[in-house]
């Protein structure tokens, strides 16, 4: 992304509008190469149980630190505000950041956010000086409550996590963009192909966060680069203001003066 179009998320000014997850890659080496190929500056991470002496977590954390990217810890798997708050507090200590991707899951099949628990946790964490990135739906009222709770960034889903379906409700995402013109909006979850990322950026979204679409691609490193390019293309397209679609054809070549024109 050009230096003239920075993205501000809380205290950070970023040049890339792609955020990447770090899970489900074929190997740590491919994960590292994919992050480099994407040019992203923010990656999501988590905390998980580990037996003493295993050191898997330590080795992963060293790999991420060596890449020099900013981390956005998540509260994935939390089912209540209380669990999410405790997980965020633990993440702040371990990762040394007050950024938190807040997830409170309310439904197993769709991994849909429990928006009531989400708002409750967002308020508690904002009061503790966290910078909350809430994983939410495209519901306008919930978005308003999250902003009231102290969130300065919103992360609505495009489709259920890991589904790769692309935008399920373009109207909802468009409405959210229109209602909150000054709030950084990041589409988080459900993107499967680079064209999906371009589409959300063309709607005026500020950034895209994805994981599975890159990690489970046949060639994750190439796919990471493809997403970076599509995010940039979509952003540039949005800024360039696309033409208004029409219902009928309109010749692009001048009609007047063509050969055999008998109307002249």
């Amino acid at each position, binding site marked *: 992304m050009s230096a003239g179009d920075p993205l501000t998320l809380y205290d950070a000014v970023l040049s890339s509008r792609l955020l990447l*997850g*770090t*899970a*489900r*890659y074929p190997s740590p080496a491919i*994960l590292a190469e994919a992050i480099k190929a994407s040019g992203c500056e923010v990656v*999501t*991470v*988590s*905390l*998980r*149980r*580990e*037996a*003493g*002496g*295993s*050191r*898997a*977590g*330590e080795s*992963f*954390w060293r790999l*991420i630190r060596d890449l020099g990217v900013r981390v956005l*810890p*998540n509260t*994935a798997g939390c089912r209540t505000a*209380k*669990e999410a708050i*405790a997980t965020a*507090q*633990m*993440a702040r*200590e*371990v*990762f040394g950041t007050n950024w938190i991707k807040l997830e409170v899951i309310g439904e197993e099949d769709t991994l849909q956010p429990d928006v009531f628990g989400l708002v409750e946790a967002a308020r508690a964490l904002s009061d503790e000086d966290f910078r909350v990135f809430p994983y939410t739906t495209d519901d306008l009222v919930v978005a308003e409550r999250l902003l009231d709770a102290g969130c300065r960034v919103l992360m609505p889903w495009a489709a259920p*996590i*890991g589904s790769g379906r692309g935008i399920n409700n373009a109207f909802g995402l468009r409405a959210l963009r229109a209602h909150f013109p000054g709030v950084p909006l990041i589409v988080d979850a459900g993107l499967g192909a680079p064209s999906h990322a371009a589409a959300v950026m063309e709607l005026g979204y500020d950034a895209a966060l994805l*994981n*599975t679409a890159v990690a489970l691609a046949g060639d994750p490193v190439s796919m990471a680069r493809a997403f970076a390019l599509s995010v940039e293309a979509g952003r540039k397209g949005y800024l360039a203001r696309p033409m208004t679609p029409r219902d009928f054809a309109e010749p692009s070549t001048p009609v007047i003066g063509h050969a055999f024109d008998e109307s002249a």
Partner: protein
Amino acid sequence: MQISVNGLTREVEAQTLALLIEELGYGTQTVATALNHEFVRSKDRSDTKLREGDAVEILTPRQGG
């Protein structure tokens, strides 16, 4: 004393959270801790006493989406 560590019931000798981390072999690993669903700061582990039936969580950095 019997407590739960990361969801598994265990018999442990440690009387504090700091000693438990040592006893279970975490050594100098970067870990985060919670006791009975409440976060316990690293600097408070030595003063955090364990009791029969406590539930301890010991977490480390991991890949995430």
